[in-house]
Structures are given as structure tokens and as C-alpha cells.
């Protein structure tokens, strides 16, 4: 078997909850699939994931089931048994859904998920991971595994901005390469007290991409349970997602995934201790 090295893993991460991570992950996955790429979207907001809710899909297939099967019989594990296909009529993408029960979310372990995403999703050109907003060992393992970290923030609310900055500084302290972290501003031109240019000054880094504030289109997309490209095809937000996807497809050769995989792995705890005590 020839290893595919062009498989790109994009995590969508933020340190402020409720600012549109799931919307970004879904519409980024859609944008990539729209370009003809083979895409798998993994919902790792384990307790309260919204990917399936957003797309109004129902299935018993979940990452919890995938983990059980993988642990029982790793030799014969087939990830396709646990993927849900989102069909649009024009193109499709796959979804590895979050657990249905909160107690199942608690049972998910980092090593199994690392193996499933790192080894069993290689047939996909792109794997997009929707994370939740915390520095957990799961999230850090996924950030390690990622080719690109889409680090999402908003600047409409001072505490949110503080967390954006604190989270970014923490990522750098944890020694993620700056170039791997793509700062993406959501709701970029909303009427707000804080200007993007000031945010860039604060972060010491320009935004890689800015998604415009388009509340009506976002709402329509969520209400209809369809990605923006269908719910609001002509909106500037849809165009912005297509641009973002295009950025990512042009850059897919920059950081081969194998290089990342050989980097030493550390859990959150040891890493935190390193930062704390040198």
C-alpha cells in the first residue's frame, strides 16, 4: 500500500465558545467538496456537537461506535461503517458524527481518535475537524495532527477578544508553528466597538481570512439545515467561504502530514508542566 501524503487535516478551533465554529467547519467542508475534493468532517465537540443538528441529519453512526469497533477489532475496523454521507445532489462529503449520549462522550479516548483520524481517513483529500473551545488533551492531540489550524475569533465582545488573544499566545507557547495557525476572523464587519486592525495589532499577526458578518444568511442556512452555498448562494458570506476553501486547496502541499506525525507527542498535562516549570 502506498501512503498518501497529500491528505490535509484542518482543525477548526477557537477559545471562545459560541462564535460559529460549527458553521465554519460545515461551510469549509462544503467549500472543499464543492471544489471536487473528497472531504470528511469530524465532529469532535463530543458532548454537544452540532454538525448533525445543523444539517438536520439523523443517524446511529457516531465516533463512539467507531471507537468501540476499533478497540474490539483494529484489524478489521472499517471507518466507512461509521460515516454518514451528506448528499447535495451535486457533490457530497462524509461526516463522522459526535456521540449521541453525553456519557459516551466521556468515554472517548485520545489515542483511539488519533488512530482513527490519522490512519483511517487517509482516503480523504481533506479532513475537517470541528473542535470545542478548550485546551483539552483531545484538542491538543488533534491540533498536533492537523496540517492547518483554523483559529477562529470574533472581536465584538471584550471577553471574547481577551480569550482570542490568550488562546493564541497559548498556542504559540505550546510551540505550534505560527505558519500552521491561520487566524480567521468571524463576523468581521459587524458593527462593533473594536476594529480588526486593532485586533491584528494585539495579536501581532494579520488575519489570514475574514468572514463577513452576514447574520441573515447564517440564520437561513441553519434554519434550512443546508450549507450556505445552497441556502444563500449569492451571499458574500458564501463567497468568502469559497475563497477560504480555495486558499486551502492551493496550499495543500505545504506541510505534508507525515512530518507532523513524527513530531514528539505530548499530552496536555506534560506540556502544561513544561510551560509552567520550563
Amino acid at each position, binding site marked *: 500500500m502506498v501512503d498518501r501524503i497529500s491528505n490535509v487535516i484542518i482543525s477548526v478551533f477557537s477559545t471562545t465558545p459560541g462564535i460559529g465554529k460549527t458553521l465554519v467547519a460545515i461551510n469549509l467542508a462544503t467549500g472543499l467538496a464543492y471544489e471536487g475534493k473528497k472531504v470528511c468532517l469530524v465532529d469532535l465537540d463530543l458532548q454537544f456537537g452540532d454538525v448533525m443538528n445543523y444539517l438536520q441529519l439523523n443517524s446511529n453512526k457516531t465516533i463512539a461506535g467507531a471507537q468501540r469497533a476499533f478497540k474490539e477489532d483494529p484489524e478489521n475496523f472499517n471507518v466507512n461503517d461509521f460515516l454518514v454521507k451528506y448528499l447535495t445532489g451535486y457533490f457530497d462529503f462524509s461526516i463522522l458524527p459526535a456521540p449521541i449520549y453525553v456519557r459516551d462522550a466521556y468515554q472517548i479516548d485520545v489515542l483511539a481518535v488519533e488512530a482513527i483520524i490519522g490512519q483511517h481517513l487517509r482516503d480523504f483529500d481533506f479532513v475537517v475537524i470541528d473542535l470545542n473551545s478548550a485546551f483539552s488533551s483531545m484538542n491538543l492531540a488533534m491540533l498536533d495532527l492537523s496540517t492547518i489550524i483554523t483559529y477562529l475569533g470574533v472581536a465584538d465582545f471584550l471577553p471574547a477578544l481577551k480569550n482570542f488573544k*490568550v488562546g493564541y499566545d497559548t498556542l504559540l507557547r505550546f510551540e505550534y508553528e505560527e505558519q500552521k495557525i491561520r487566524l480567521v476572523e468571524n463576523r468581521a464587519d459587524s458593527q462593533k466597538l473594536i476594529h480588526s486592525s486593532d485586533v491584528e495589532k494585539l495579536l501581532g499577526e494579520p488575519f489570514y481570512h475574514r468572514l463577513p458578518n452576514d447574520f441573515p444568511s447564517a440564520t437561513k442556512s441553519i434554519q434550512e439545515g443546508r450549507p450556505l452555498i445552497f441556502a444563500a448562494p449569492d451571499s458574500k458570506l458564501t463567497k468568502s467561504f469559497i475563497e477560504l476553501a480555495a486558499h486551502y486547496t492551493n496550499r495543500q502541499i505545504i506541510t505534508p502530514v507525515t512530518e507532523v506525525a513524527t513530531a514528539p507527542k505530548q499530552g*496536555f498535562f506534560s506540556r*502544561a508542566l513544561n510551560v509552567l516549570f520550563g
Partner: protein
Amino acid sequence: MAIQVVLVEEDQKVIEDMLVALRKSPEFEIAAIYKTAESALGQSKMFQPELFLIDVDNEKSVSLISAFIETYPDAKVLGMMTYWKSATAYECLKGGAVGCILKSFTIEEIKKALKLYELRGKNAPSRVIAFFSPKGRAGRTTVASILALELEKKSGERVALIDADLQFGDMPIFFDVEPEHTIVEATQDIKLLNPLTFEPYFHKIKDSVYLLSSPDKPEYAELVDVESFIEVVRMTCCLFRYVLIDLPAGFNPISISTCDLSGTDIVMAMLNNVFDIHHMRRTLEVFQTFKHGHKKVYTCFTRVNPCTEDERLKIQRELGYPVTDILPNEYQMISLANSGRLLKGLPKDSLLIQKIGEIADDVINERR
């Protein structure tokens, strides 16, 4: 006039130490010393005692505290213990004592304890209210902050806010303060502390509202262990009548242990998004499996528009569980939090403040 003290203590050595300490001060006068709480209870009448110092290492004495309060309604009861025990301190408060102090104390310590416990408010166990939400940006911090200010304003009792959102706590920014200590030091030191030495870890926000801040950096969250955190909450109860805990979103060891702490009421706030009712239902299912299944869970939805009784009933029907509160969206609050102006007076005419004020009334009057 010196305060008439009745001492209940068995250990002769301890009695002597205390006599030495208390006699140094003209403010206290030992009226009588008893070896057992039973005899003190029956025989102290003739001394018109104003303060009972009772050895609460003795469990029998703890159980008699409420009888002391009943028999001597004008007197205060202060428990004395050799090592700090939160469970005993809680039982003493439940009996009506003002609190507890460690043996052997100096006269300064006893004065400080009496002062702090008087500021604390009513001699009754604290109301611990945890703010839980499945997902973030639900308004937990906003509601907890405003409720703290309202509780203090309406009751005059002491209120503590504990920012347990360890990685990304927002309380300091909400109040525009820079606390010297955080929950990291508090949890690391707690085993060596008692309420008197613990008190300086809190940052005064306004009048009788105090904050125990979250760590400065996300990775410091790792330094807070659950057991010590719970002990911090318990000791906070000895100093504050109301203890409001702002939890991180979702279920994690800190949020689960806090919600499982006996005597805790849980309030859940969340954004009224289309999926949130679904998440709320899943959350309530988990709460029902907790040990203390009888505890009070108040379901609160934020950003409800229109904020009407019809809307509440509609959400309740969809949820399949009672919905206690609905709170309106308040864009004004964003600018308040942005500028740290929360302290300089809340907008009185706002429906949000009015509704949280009603919650404060209910809590103070034990209606919830």
C-alpha cells in the same frame, strides 16, 4: 461592658490557654466554664451569656447548637475545632452558629472571626448556586455577576463569586479588576488555611461582593485539582452567605463535582438557539443521574425574544422539563462588560436586570 463568655470545653490544657487569651482583653469576660454542652445549656441562664465558645470536636455538642440558639436567642455561638473540618463547620452553621474558629486562638483572631462572621450575614448555611451551561456564550458570567450584585444590594449579606471557568474565565474583565490571587493559589494552600487566613484570597469587587478569580493562563487550570476546589467552595461558605460559581461549559470534573456538591442549586443558562433545547434536554438527563437527585435545578434560557410567558411555555413544552426563567437579550450588557462598567451601576429600567432582581428576591426569601 465586657462580652459575657461561656466556654464549653473538656480539655484542661485548652481551657487554660483560652483563659490566658481571653483575660488579656477587657472586651471579654469569662462568665462560666463547662465541660459538657448539656450542662452549659441548662445552667448558663443566670450569667446572661452573650457568646458561647463551644468545642465542636465533640459531635454531641454540635448537635446541641440549635438548642443553644433557641434557649439563648440573643447570644452568639462560635464553634472551636482543633483541625479545620468543613463538614463540622457546615453542621455548626446549620445549627445557627456564627461559624467556627481554630483552637487555640489569640484575642485578635476571635475578634476578627466575630467581625467576619457578622459581615457574612444570617447565621445559616450558605446558598451555593452553580451556573452551568452545556455550551458557551450562554450568558452564565453575565447572569452570575448581576445576580451577585443584586443579592448583595437586597440582602446586605456577603456574596462570593468563584470563577471556575479555569481556562477562560471572564470575571476580572467583566468587573475591570486585577485580582492579586487566583483560584490556583487558593486550591494549593487550602489544606493549610482556615476561614480567617483564607479571606484575603478574595478580591473585593464592591461593598460585600468578592471574587475568587480564575487563573491568568489557560494551562494553570491543570494545577487545580477537583478535591481542593470543592474544599475551597466549602470554606468560602464559612465567609459568604451566597456563593455563586461560574462553571466552564459542558461536563468536566470541576463542573460535575460542583453540581454534585450537596446543598448546591444549579442554574443553567443558555442561548436560545434552535439546537439548544435539544442540548438542554440531554443535560437534564445527565443531571438526573447525579447522586443528589433531589437538588434543585432551575432551567434558565437567555436571549429569549420575545421574553413573554407564552414563549416560556412554548420552550417548556418543547423541552419536556420545567423552564424556571427566561431572560431577554440585552445588547446593552455587551457594552457594559466591554467597559467594565458593570460596577458603576446597573441600568435600572432594563428588563434583564429587573428579572435577575426577581431571582435575587426569590433566593433571599427562600422561595427558591
